[in-house]
């Protein structure tokens, strides 16, 4: 009793549920380089492009970013000078002084979003993309993949970089401010973090994880 459906000779229709808005979208075969997008919200449902390439890039960018993370955390970012006395800062000094001034909640928040979350995110991406690029089936990929998804929106290095620029503008009126080498590392780190997020193809990895767990 399929009187309403016209094309009876075609392949059986497969409906994909959009992960973003749960709209039902008709599946179809894709030519290389094409995307299938949700008709309601534009979310990418599946693609058939060079994902392997992008995963390799994610591996490279996340490794670079991890090295930059070490540099950015060990060299001073700013130097503030008032009549001969000066003070330099690392990312961690801000957290320590917030703690000492009696604001442990704020210190924890800054520690989480400026040090812990970015580092963990990069470690997860590095591990997952490395195992996929090398075809290894190491344990913990599912867990680290979900961790990367959750941590992605809390990876706030670019925001921290802009905050440094704003603080220089503010401090200019109070004394001498000069950039230190750490500022370069923070800037590079935010660029490589953004590149990593761009290349970490979650859609592709999700399909891979479902196919061979």
């Amino acid at each position, binding site marked *: 009793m399929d009187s309403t459906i016209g094309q009876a000779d075609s392949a059986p229709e497969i409906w994909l549920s959009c992960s973003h808005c749960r*709209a039902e979208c008709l599946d179809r075969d894709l030519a290389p380089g094409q995307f299938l997008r949700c008709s309601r*919200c534009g979310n990418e449902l599946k693609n058939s492009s060079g994902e392997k390439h992008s995963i390799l890039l994610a591996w490279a960018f996340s490794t670079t970013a991890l090295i930059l993370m070490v540099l950015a955390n060990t060299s001073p970012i700013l130097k503030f000078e008032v009549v001969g006395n000066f003070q330099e800062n690392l990312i961690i000094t801000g957290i320590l*002084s917030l703690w000492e001034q009696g604001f442990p909640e704020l210190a924890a928040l800054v520690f989480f979003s400026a040090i812990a979350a970015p580092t963990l995110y990069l470690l997860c991406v590095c591990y997952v993309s490395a195992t996929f690029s090398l075809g290894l089936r190491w344990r913990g990929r599912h867990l680290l993949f979900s961790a990367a998804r959750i941590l992605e*929106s809390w990876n706030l290095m670019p925001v921290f970089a802009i*905050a440094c620029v704003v603080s220089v503008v503010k401090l200019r009126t109070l004394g001498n401010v000069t950039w230190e080498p750490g500022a370069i590392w923070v800037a590079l780190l935010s660029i490589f973090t953004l590149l990593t997020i761009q290349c970490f193809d979650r859609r592709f990895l999700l399909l891979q994880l479902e196919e061979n767990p």
Partner: protein
Amino acid sequence: MFRPSVSFAATGGKPLSDRLRFELSRALVMAGFIFYIPANFLPVMTITITGEVEPLTVMGGVWELYETGLAPVAAIVFLASVVVPLLKLSIMAWILVLHGSDIHRQRRMDLHGFLLKIGTWAMIDIFLLSVLTAVGQLGILASVTPERGALFYAAMLISNVLATDIYKPWLIWQESEPQTS
């Protein structure tokens, strides 16, 4: 399907039900509105330069910039730190008020996506405070200390981000009859 929920911790690994998502999000938006008031009117930090103590509230800072003739700068600061947080809370409240109805669905989904994108940028003020307190440790010459307003600001920001995160776009498209899931 392999798709763990973001809010896995609250329910011990189980995904949140749609009803609970809506209610949690609503509660968090209300909390955000309450935190908004002390965040703007209590001092956020104190800057002491060569003995002169200067407690800074967000509104006070705007007023001061305006008085010194820097009206355009005052307008930018006012927009970024006073209007935008309120606007974000209001948009989220509007999305939640229309929950279950079928008007402006497309627009609600677009705005929700926009809120998700810009949400964590509000952390810039907290980072700014962290950088300023780090370098502002020169004793009597120049010192920067955080004040209680900053706590309320952070609380407002986090409840807003979580409210946006917990409410999922598919809830916008649900039919008004509650479906058991």
